[in-house]
């Protein structure tokens, strides 16, 4: 029993992601509320470690997954809480996959919170857009302001 109490009051560690405990000091201040929404809603049916330890590398995975969880009877995940949960999970997944270093500031998308049915968050915090295609060879390039003529 002594060991039980000792374990339960142990020092926090970034690796500790169990039933209720997560080292929230690692979470950017602007996402703490999102984490709280995630913790409150998701712990109703399962441990938080279910989500935190899931082998997810693509943040967009959570869009479908949370939508499925919302349809679980009595989930209590309301349409306006969904973006909060998603925003935390997206940040968490990116931070785990080193796309965002844990100490780096995270700029959340304001649109996400204003529009519950907004487009997937990954667009707001996802990787850099793909580079523009190579320009055509100079002899085929149209002059400025002229449309490109397509050869038959």
């Amino acid at each position, binding site marked *: 029993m002594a060991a039980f109490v000792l374990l*339960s009051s142990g020092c926090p560690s970034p690796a500790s992601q169990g039933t209720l405990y997560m080292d929230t000091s690692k979470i950017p201040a602007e996402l703490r509320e999102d984490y709280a929404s995630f913790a409150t809603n998701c712990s109703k049916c399962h441990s938080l470690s279910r989500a935190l330890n*899931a082998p997810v590398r693509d943040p967009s995975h959570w869009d479908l*997954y949370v939508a499925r969880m919302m*349809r679980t009877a*009595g989930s209590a995940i309301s349409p306006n809480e969904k973006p909060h949960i998603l925003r935390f999970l997206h940040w968490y997944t990116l931070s785990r996959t080193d796309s965002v270093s844990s100490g780096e500031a995270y700029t959340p998308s304001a649109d996400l919170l204003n529009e519950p049915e907004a487009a997937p968050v990954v667009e707001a915090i996802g990787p850099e857009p793909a580079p523009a295609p190579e320009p055509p060879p100079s002899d085929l390039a149209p002059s400025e302001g002229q449309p490109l003529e397509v050869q038959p």
Partner: protein
Amino acid sequence: MKRRAASSVSSRSLGVRALLVIAISAVGVAALLPSVRGQDRNFAGSIQSSYLYVHDQEDIPGRVRDRVFDGFTTELSVKLAVDFNEHISTNVKLCYGCHGVEIDMAYIDLVAVDELRFRAGRFNPAFGELPLRHDPANHRTIDKPLPYDMGRMLRWRDFNGSVMPSPYVDNGLEVSGTHWFGYSFQIDYAVYAVGGFRGDNQDDDFDFTQSRSGNSYYVDNNSRPSFGGRYAMTLDLAEAETTFTLGASGMAGYYDPDAELSYWIAGADFYARLKTFELRAEYLVRRTEMFLGDAPASRFKYGPGKNGFDRYMLKEGFYVEAIMPLLPRFELVGRFDGLRRVGNVLSSSSLSKRSSVLRYTLGGDVSLGHGVRVKLSGEYYDFNDFKNEIAAMLGVVAVL
């Protein structure tokens, strides 16, 4: 008997029509859905290993064994969920436990809108609150509450199990949906047609092993669907971190191969969250028709009443469970549950006509990190037909 036969035909016809409507609707929805554009696979699972200690267990009348210790009871589950898009997903789950390896889920999920969803295949029919979190990684105690117990309670064989052993898995079709009124009020419904519980023609109760045995290829034993449903209302006050859910469930059908022995189950459930404090309560009751035979006087322990032998027995159970986080990694769990069987019993049974057990559980749950938790609980069983027992359980559970 004639009236029953007529009723059976009518019920069967109704069931077939209901199945047709559901199947046609599902096909229609599938045809209207956009084409599959990709897949998103999710692997999940859990493993729980537990140890049970019983002080002075009386396993058969007159024989008391000192310090009984059952070690290393393992429950394992692995699940693969594939989201093709927001309308189509599939789930396959394998479980290993005392019953061996079995398929706990194998279904296709079609979602037209949040209010209309179809599940077809092998799944956990919507009944009550606990089945939503029946996986050992999802509930805080090692064993399940008595109305849902599946082999962990003391005297399980004497009672022939609980009201509805969880996870209850069956094959069939389910239509369900959820709708939000604003941001605070949610309603959920589910109706389904499944194979139903199983037993033999001359049984006095279900034979739960038939429900989870792959030997019969999970085929309905009487080709007569059982019907059921659930309705729940949820009030979510996000600002106050408070949630209330109230639900009601029901199910009815026949369990023997000849479809002569009927049963119905009803349940009510309540859930409340006040910040981090959680309270759950459920009540389940099942009425089961027993086979009387030509000579019930020699088959049953108790004689006939004023109206002859009563062919029905009632099994009911309840639990109230409270969870309170006390330390960052520690939650305290308190539970009070009970199970009662009312009705005649076979002459070989050790139960009386009204046999009951009340159980008091105090436990804790410690997070070690990385999805690993240690569960510990002490339980006091208060039987009316047997010697009272004290038990302790220790388990470790990990999320895969």
